[in-house]
């Protein structure tokens, strides 16, 4: 359909998009899980209520979530330069993507953990379980299917953000769509990149759903 050069570029674009999405999600969860756990347990109905901690985290997460991604991308350029050495390219994009993903993921983790039946938590407390035991052996285990669904949603959202990063030279399929489709009026390339993005989201979604339903023992 396209020249070999364009085909190679599209293939590289898929690779870069996946690279940014997967790594950002991974780093996002590295910080988002502890944050989500703290939000859950420090809440007034949590297992270790702590009003001050909860309010602080709650506000930080809300601020993080309300900054539009494009603004964040620009605001974070100095940090990105410091960490990666450059602010252009797919590796550099991982920094703002991760920062944007953390508060979003923290909320998803929090909402999954809140779904855990309070009765089961009470049962664990009645057995003399410590807070750590309740977190790792009750909350995270009972919420695992919901957490996996959350990962799927996070991947889809971050993939969308990564395409946005293309507008400022972030690499990946979004970058191609902007440069060729928009600046050079090559509509065909733009349409193909969009189709590729859709297919990627579909595949990630499918994998997530299959995994979560395989792991769910409630039925």
């Amino acid at each position: 359909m396209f020249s070999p050069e364009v085909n190679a570029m599209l293939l590289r674009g898929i690779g870069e998009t996946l690279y940014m999405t997967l790594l950002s999600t991974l780093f996002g969860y590295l910080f988002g899980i502890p944050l989500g756990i703290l939000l859950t347990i420090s809440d007034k109905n949590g297992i270790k209520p702590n009003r001050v901690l909860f309010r602080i985290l709650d506000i930080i997460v809300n601020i993080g979530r309300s900054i539009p991604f494009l603004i964040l991308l620009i605001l974070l350029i100095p940090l990105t330069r410091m960490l990666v050495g450059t602010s252009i390219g797919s590796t550099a994009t991982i920094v703002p993507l991760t920062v944007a993903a953390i508060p979003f993921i923290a909320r998803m983790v929090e909402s999954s953990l809140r779904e855990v039946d309070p009765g089961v938590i009470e049962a664990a407390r009645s057995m003399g379980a410590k807070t750590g035991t309740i977190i790792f052996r009750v909350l995270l285990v009972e919420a695992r299917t919901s957490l996996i669904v959350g990962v799927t949603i996070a991947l889809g959202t971050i993939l969308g953000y990564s395409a946005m990063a293309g507008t400022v030279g972030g690499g990946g399929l979004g970058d191609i769509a902007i440069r060729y489709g928009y600046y050079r009026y090559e509509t065909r390339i733009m349409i193909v990149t969009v189709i590729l993005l859709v297919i990627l989201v579909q595949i990630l979604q499918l994998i997530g759903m299959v995994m979560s339903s395989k792991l769910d023992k409630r039925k």
Partner: protein
Amino acid sequence: MAIIEVKHVSKRFFTKDAPVDALKDINLQVEAGDIYGIIGMSGAGKSTLVRCLNFLEIPTEGDVKVNGKNLWDLSERELLQERQSIAMIFQHFNLLMQKNVIDNVCFPLRIQGKSKAEAKIRAMELLAIVGLADRAKSYPAQLSGGQKQRVAIARALASNPKILLCDEATSALDPQTSASILKLLKQINQQFGITIVIITHQMSVVRQICNKVAIMSLGEIKEKGTVNDIFSHPKTEEARELLLRDADSGYEETEQIRELLAERKIRIVYSSNSSYEPVIANMVLMTGKAVNILKADTKNVGGTAKGEMILGLPEDAESQELIIKYLKDRGLDVEEVKGNV
């Protein structure tokens, strides 16, 4: 010596509107080996009270002594330790839904720091006690309510507790399953000498297995004592009310009752006009045959008094026919009744 001692315990919850006194100056003593029932309508405070016994709820005032230790004197770590000797089961079983049966039973053992292998062996013993050894690999979602509660009981026994708290443990179960769970609890009480505290709103539960009972209403204990005493001489309005509700709920199958159930029974229904005539007395005089009155009840059905009576008939077929004919001639509905009345 009392294994649980509750002294002047009060609990106040601060809600948006006004503070609520869930418990008001509760005093209670449970002796080792007791099966102690705490009964009351919903909202009486019994669930709060039972949670004060392991400090899942911290009382606003008053002392709780368990196994000779005042729970207030314990550090956080000691309290967690102590909770291992006070097991608890719940109305909705509260099993880990993503873990299979054996892992659920292993859970408290792993908390205690037992190795995986050691925990598995003990868990299998416990599952055998509750009769579920063959379901070790099943997940809770695949079990019936009664089976789930059995798993919960096995899990509760895992830490070798001295006390078992049951919070409405049979309320979500049908009467037959409920009876089998109560039987299991009684067996546990006798076999392992575990003291049991049962929270319930059903007098039938108290009647079936408790030796002592406290009646709660609106955060207070209205009456307490041995089950025998309270059943024969209820002193308070609350006790009488609970006993009355229980009257409808069937009876235990003692030897005597089984004998009565074996005989041929009929149900007669009479409406207000026929109830003025002393039918049964006349029938006995006329036919010279005695009957057993197993149950009699009058209900208000759509404004008219409908009476229902269940009679046990004499053994010989001739007398039976005579009686049935007599009653039918008087215009009463006669209907054969089988099994439990």
